[in-house]
């Protein structure tokens, strides 16, 4: 159930003093936030811990959210910080459990093995990009955040986001070319 912007603004105001209103925002955004976190850490338990932290911080901080700010972008910003904390606590970037992440959707069994291997290779390329490129590609192309929402996440102006998206896309394109992956003809819609 998508919350209309006017209704969302009302809920954000209500959520400062009403647990049920906050729960509605949670219902709306929790699956996406969890999915994003899981995409970044690839470990289910860690994704649950981080998602819990994100919404605990959001609940405590919603009173300070400035009027007109993107709630979704703000949540993703908290999530990004929690993910950084997670990796910092581990002291390293863990080996992403890419096979689990890629193989998770139910319809994968119907796809040919070589296609899965290519998909894994592509996601591995994304994972090996510098963190700033990886984050912005994930947020924009995979999470579907708008330029304005990404600006909220990374704390910059929307105009600057265009260039960041462009640079990240170009870097990813160059890495694909080095690996000889230019099209996935069989299944690119």
């Amino acid at each position, binding site marked *: *159930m998508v919350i209309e912007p006017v*209704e969302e603004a009302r809920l954000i105001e209500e959520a400062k*003093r*009403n*647990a*049920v*209103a*906050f*729960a*509605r925002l*949670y*219902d709306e955004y*929790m*699956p*996406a936030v*969890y*999915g*994003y976190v*899981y*995409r970044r850490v690839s470990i*289910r*338990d860690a*994704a*649950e*811990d981080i*998602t*819990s*932290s994100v*919404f605990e911080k959001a*609940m*405590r901080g919603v009173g300070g959210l400035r009027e007109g700010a993107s709630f979704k972008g703000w949540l993703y910003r908290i999530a990004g910080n929690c993910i950084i*904390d997670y990796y*910092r*606590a581990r002291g390293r970037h863990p080996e992403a459990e890419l096979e689990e992440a890629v*193989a*998770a*959707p139910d319809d994968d069994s119907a796809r040919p093995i070589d296609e899965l291997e*290519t*998909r*894994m290779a*592509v996601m591995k390329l*994304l994972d090996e990009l510098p963190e700033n490129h990886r984050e912005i*590609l994930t947020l*924009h*192309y*995979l999470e579907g955040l708008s330029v304005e929402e990404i600006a909220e996440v990374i704390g910059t102006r929307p105009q600057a986001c*265009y*260039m960041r*998206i*462009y640079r990240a*896309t*170009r870097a*990813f*394109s160059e890495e*694909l070319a080095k690996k000889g*992956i*230019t*099209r996935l003809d069989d299944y*690119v*819609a």
Partner: protein
Amino acid sequence: MSRKSTAQELVRAAAGGAGPVSPDVSALLEAVAVLKAADGGHVAPDPAFAASLRQRLIEEHPSAVAAPVKAEERSRRRIWPTVAVGATALAAIALAAILFFVVSPAGPTVARLTVQNGAVQVTSQGRTRPVTASTDKKNGDVKAGDTVATFSGSRATLSFLNKDVTRLEAASTMKVDSYDSRDVGLVLKSGKAYCRVVRHGDFTVSCNGVEVTATGTAFGVDSHDGVVDSPVFEGTVKVVWPTGSRSVSQGKQLTLTKKNGRYVPTMKDIDPTADLSWLAFNRDLDKRLKLPLGILGALGATPPNGNLPPGTPPAQQSSSPGSSKPSDSRGRQSSPGPVASSPTATNPQPGPQPTPQPNPTPEPTPGPGPQVTPSVSLSVASAGPPVVVSWSVQNGESVTGVAVLKGAGVMDPSYPGNSVLTTSPATSSYRDKDVESGGTYSYRIALLSDGSVVAYSNRQTVSTPPPQLSLDGKGQGTSVYISWSLSGVVHIDSWAVLRSGNNPSPSFPTDQYATVGYSGPSGSFSDSNASPNRDYYRVAGLYQGRVIVKSNTVLLP
């Protein structure tokens, strides 16, 4: 074309914007298409996790938690005197805090948990873990913000770093709300706690809007049926509630009973015989810690049943020899030796008596013997979906497998028909996600040897909290907007919007006005044809046409 305009063109085209694109952008769009095609999509969260976190957020929302807010205010009040002591002290505190967080990003350990009987559940940062007497050395670290819950038949001790001690009676839940070496803040959510304040400093227990604060004393807090009891065993405490406060001296008990929404205080002498098992349990442990006993010093002898906590299965009580068994260095009694147990025999280990010690020596290992019969004791968390089942096996050398048995309602589930999990003897807990809010489930553990049952545990029956459906709304003229939110885990396939102009409790199906498809635990409905007069609105969650949960009623517009 400038890079800036190329970047804007890329974003527009990638979003499906119409119009021609330059060759540079076209190549980048290929890369974007590859990335999107390769992506596996979102992984959905575990529904039990989603429901559990949602419930916790509602419970811990500032609007729903009065007591912790008070605890925070208390902490703030303490900051300013600390500042006045001098910048050096503040810098030292800040440095210590930084060191703590560098060492442990999740927060430092502030207390050690020792489990005397059964199993205890610790909730830390949204995750729960069972802790038993055999695992508390490994899993017993407790941090500020953690919640400790004992179950029927279990007791536990929290030993804080500053030497203060809190013990939890069976079926109690306590949150460690705040901690520094001179200021301990606890929230008793339910049940009974005994607090032993050793160091000088504020030690406060909040409970249902009541704060009990002590400086160097022994006192209890007991929350039951909307009543808060505060007995004082040694020293003096101050009890504060929203409309009053009272000092309580040694030997007295202040009882606060709610009448018409306000607490009414009653002071009386403590009757030690009314709670002899619990008080003797604490007296014996305090004696080992060489702490002043106050009125507990005049308490009678340890009860013959060995101070077992409420809910201890009868088989365990009957096998208890009282306090005559030798104890190990932690106060736990050593193995009672060979036990001839019936198929329903439970943990033969009697209850008391732990003494929190920083470096406990290992427990003695019972020696195997030809007559030793395995046995198992079971504890079940009743905090709601998921249900956490924990067990402890004694004399399990011959056990090759463990089966978790589950039945709906009150029953004795049996093996193999009611088995939901068969696992190795090394496993000691099971998180049952396949439960609904408002359900009643019975559990038992079967110990297996070569595929045959050699012992059953006691049965534990648990009822999960019922689902809650909260309805809110607003209206103007003939337009009404209502929204609702469900807490808990239940099967619902549609929502029925109920409306009545004269029935303040609209019912299903008589007052059904509209149906809304189920797409999640919350929903909304707009009524543009509301009555010019006021209408009562209510929502019911349905499954296959049957009402599963009903909301409150709102009168709109």
